[in-house]
């Protein structure tokens, strides 16, 4: 049977499409020239200049604080949600599922403006805390979906075996289920962390004085210049992301 070449070609084409802009960025970050259109030799000067940009380090610190906090809280809430969704099949869960699913597809700008108006109506001051609240809100859904996926593939015969051996409900949950589910939970946490670090639109709406995060800083840099600095920063972020994703995938594999 002759196999069509179309799927292979499509896949290769898509990968080239994906990576072309990224490759250009990475290569340009080593370009001594200020503007990417001409090549002026290899240079690390932009990376060195990056080290001195205190605004970026300040923004990075804010981003990390929020990301750690938000992923931690959303992992707790999201895992609980996944348990509920998997274990029970009532009408309550159907509504629950709709509520969890909605933020996944809802355009960010709608969530952003909603939260902004909500905080304004309540008179809450905008700042790191409001960003934190916003990030947890959209991260819960992602964590829940990842953990739910894990639960659905979970081999519950192990649980039954433990119960047959006389373990009670508490032991079963905390000493068998959760540890085996941990890679999924950590993967969910990693996803939440990445989403939080990268979020721009929602953060932009609810940020306040002194709460500039890294994406907001990058947006500002894109708007008023210094493209080579952005290239260098992007390359660093790419390397970090690649490592994180690879690590996360390894975690999922080890679980098997």
């Amino acid at each position, binding site marked *: 049977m002759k196999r069509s070449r179309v799927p292979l070609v499509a896949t290769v084409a898509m990968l080239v499409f994906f990576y072309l802009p990224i490759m250009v960025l990475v290569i340009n970050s080593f370009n001594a020239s200020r*503007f990417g259109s001409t090549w002026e030799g290899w240079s690390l000067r932009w990376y060195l200049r990056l080290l001195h940009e205190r605004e970026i380090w300040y923004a990075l*610190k804010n981003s990390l604080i929020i990301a750690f906090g938000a992923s*931690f809280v959303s992992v707790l809430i999201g895992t609980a949600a996944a348990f509920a969704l998997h274990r029970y099949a009532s009408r309550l869960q159907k509504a629950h599922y709709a509520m969890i699913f909605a933020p996944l597809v809802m355009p960010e700008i709608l969530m952003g403006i909603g939260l*902004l108006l909500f905080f304004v109506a309540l008179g809450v001051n*905008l700042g790191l805390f409001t960003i934190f609240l916003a990030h947890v809100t959209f991260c819960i859904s992602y964590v829940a979906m990842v953990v739910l996926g894990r639960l659905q593939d979970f081999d519950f015969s192990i649980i039954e075996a433990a119960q047959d051996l006389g373990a009670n409900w508490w032991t079963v949950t905390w000493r068998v289920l959760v540890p085996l589910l*941990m*890679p999924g939970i950590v993967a969910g946490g990693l996803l939440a962390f990445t989403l939080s670090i990268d979020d721009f639109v929602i953060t932009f709406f609810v940020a*306040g004085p002194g709460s500039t995060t890294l994406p907001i800083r990058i947006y500002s840099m894109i708007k008023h*210049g*210094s493209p080579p600095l952005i290239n260098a920063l992007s390359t660093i972020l790419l390397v970090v992301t690649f490592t994180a994703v690879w690590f996360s995938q390894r975690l999922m594999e080890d679980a098997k």
Partner: protein
Amino acid sequence: MKPVWKSVLFLAAAALVLCAGCSRKEAVLHVYTWADYIKPELVQQFEKENRCRVVIDTFDSNEVMYAKLKAGAEGYDIITPSSYMVKIMDGQGMLEPLDHSLLPNLKHVDRDYLRSALDPEMHHSVPYMLTTTVIAYLKSRVPDFEATWAVFDRADLKGRMTVLNDMRETIGAGLKYLGYSLNTTNEKELAEARDVILRWKRNIAKFENEQYKTGLASGEFFVVAGTFSGFVGPQGGVCSQPIVNAADGAIVACVDNFGVWSQNWLSGEAGATLVYNALGPSFPEPPPGAAQLPRLRGLRTRRRQPFEEPSRRLLPSGSR
């Protein structure tokens, strides 16, 4: 399983460390200003001398700044809006009155300017910088440039021009092009100006407040409307007449050969007067660098010291 627990612990520990770092109590000055307005070296010097931290957030338009503040972004100590915005914000009770006893350097402010300023007594604001909107173009890419607002009607430059993302400036440009007063409230005239801008809209690439600078420098745009403070002074060579006052009120700058392009504008030292004085009477004399600035960029600061000819030429004839 064990490595997984280790990573979880590590994450938790990292979070704690980060939080410990941010609980130190120290004086913080929150500044909300235009991007590229204040020199980083100046900020560092200020921090060292006053033993505090300066946190700078930026905005790219008065409206955005006002909207953010109205929406509940409290906690900014110093902001640098345009003068008309000061009046609006004052009317809304958003500004604190200034205590002149804490600002000894106010005596250096240019009295000539204050006569026509919106806040002549400096109740709520201190003038920082006067600049003008210009049309800047790259002579190397547009050799047949004519100094007039009508350049935005040129279809051959379609997609390579920008105008400011500012309602006052852009409608104002339309009004000036039609020969009307900038301050008109005549509905018919405003409607005509609006139609002019709609016509220009077909030729421009973007309404932009910030990207026009790099855009022009990198050749992305050929003609931009911007504030003069966005450009290093004309470097000579390509343009015989670097600055031209057009008949219809446009001020045009030819800006080829950027040469030394500095991201960190001059305004640093002039800004020093304002920033230093806000927190304490620590500076009896303005820093030495301040006097050099007008020379470099042809801008007028508020100080009474005499400055170069190019900056005088930039002022509208009424206030020379």
